[in-house]
């Protein structure tokens, strides 16, 4: 089963964390990626730029418009993701718990849709 592990974070709370904790979180990702790569469970990952860098695109009556800032008004932001494939959902939760950000923020585990379907 493929899952997206979605890392949610709060930039204000992140900046309030002591520098050594922030370092530890960053370094933890290196370890996490190494383990996932070795197990063959890693499909992809990305860290996202600060929400202040976001532009939102809308097309209205065929005309695209680009505005500054994110689509959703929120204090928490999507900071990055890991795409993984695990044998069981429990393993996906276990891996989500190993993401260092889980200790300060929260990780959402969402199944990824597939294109095979059973006859009904």
């Amino acid at each position, binding site marked *: 089963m493929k899952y997206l592990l979605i890392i949610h974070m709060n930039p204000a709370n992140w900046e309030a964390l002591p520098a050594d904790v922030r370092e530890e979180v960053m370094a933890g990702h290196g370890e996490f990626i190494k383990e996932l790569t070795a197990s063959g*469970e890693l*499909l992809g990952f990305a860290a996202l730029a600060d929400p202040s860098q976001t532009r939102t695109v809308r097309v209205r009556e065929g005309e695209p418009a680009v505005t500054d800032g994110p689509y959703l008004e929120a204090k928490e932001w999507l900071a990055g993701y890991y795409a993984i494939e695990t044998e069981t959902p429990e393993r996906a939760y276990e891996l989500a718990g190993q993401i260092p950000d889980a200790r300060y923020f929260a990780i959402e585990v969402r*199944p990824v849709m597939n*294109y*095979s*379907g059973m006859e*009904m």
Partner: protein
Amino acid sequence: MTGARIEDLLRDLAPQVLGVLVRRHGGFAECEDAVQEALLAAATQWPGQGLPDHPRAWLVTVATRRLTDQLRSDTARRRREESAYAATPADELFAPAPGERTGPAADDTLILLLLCCHPALTAPSQVALTLRAVGGLSTAEIAHAFLVPQASMAQRISRAKQRIRATGAVFAAPPPGELPERMSAVLHVLYLIFNEGYTASSGPCLQRTELTAEAIRLARELRRLRPGDGEVAGLLALMLLTDARRAARTGPDGELVPLADQDRSRWQTMAIAEGVELITDTLRRAELGPYQLQAAIAAVHAEAATTADTDWRQILSLYRVLSRLFPNPMVTLNQAVAEAMVHGPRAGLALLGTLDADERLARHHRLYAVRAHLLELAGDRDAAREQYRRAARATTSVPEQRYLESRAVRR
């Protein structure tokens, strides 16, 4: 010889060549890598230069050369290998059943299958390793079929081989006492490969149908090796009968068409005839097993000219036997449909009620979908709609979701 024919030949030869190498040199993991390289060399050279006089000998020579290069470049590893891998000639340990074809090539394929489906491996690893070592598929092809980056698939295969090494398993048949359990793992892996490929015939995953063909090819090979095994025959029959419906089970835009609405003129009659004959013959003489019963149910569906002609009584009695001998919530789910067709939707719904407490199925989209279907048959449109919506939200399959959503809005 065309590229496709060469590919078929290479897939047939892959396990034989690997068997020869492991037998001579030991070290399954290294030999497997060497054979992959030889297959790749053949796939590149043969189409242009023509087939060698002795394709199998050519592959053995090239693979042996690769293996020697590899071992020379890592002598420390070789020493470890030689001590850990005293390859036992399989012929000495493996007593074939009466009437079975013997000979090193035949035995090697079976031993390879058993090794790749080793119980120390997870199911996805068993699947990947079987496709590579026995099926002769490249890592890139397997990765592509499973929609996984090639590096991840390569890592899974190499971990699986390390795992086998760590268990100390030798290239030999398991003790006779373990054989039934190990065989059932092999059948399960072939079934998983089949199901993985049995998918929407359009959309972004067209190439996955190759997995279905590969699973059928391996099941045929296994049947040749173990002609007396009723479950092997049952699995092959089940695959043939299921795959026969492939063209009819999806619409022009890749949408799922339920069994009841399929255009039966599009079913493959040859595959059905073969499957029906195989399962009929097997049921007469072999010890009953779950694959045979599922194949028998598929055969009853296949033999009905129209949905209305379906012999639901026979299907129901087969499901009752299946759930008594091999209880499983998925079987109960299908049995509920058969109950509904014979004794009315309320009887089916009552049986579904027994599944609500089952952890394995709680909140499973199939449970909602079957309940929706039975509520629809019972004339309770509103409740059916609600269950279809739940099912649509719970599934992680795009074509299933489209189908369930279309049922939810139907008047």
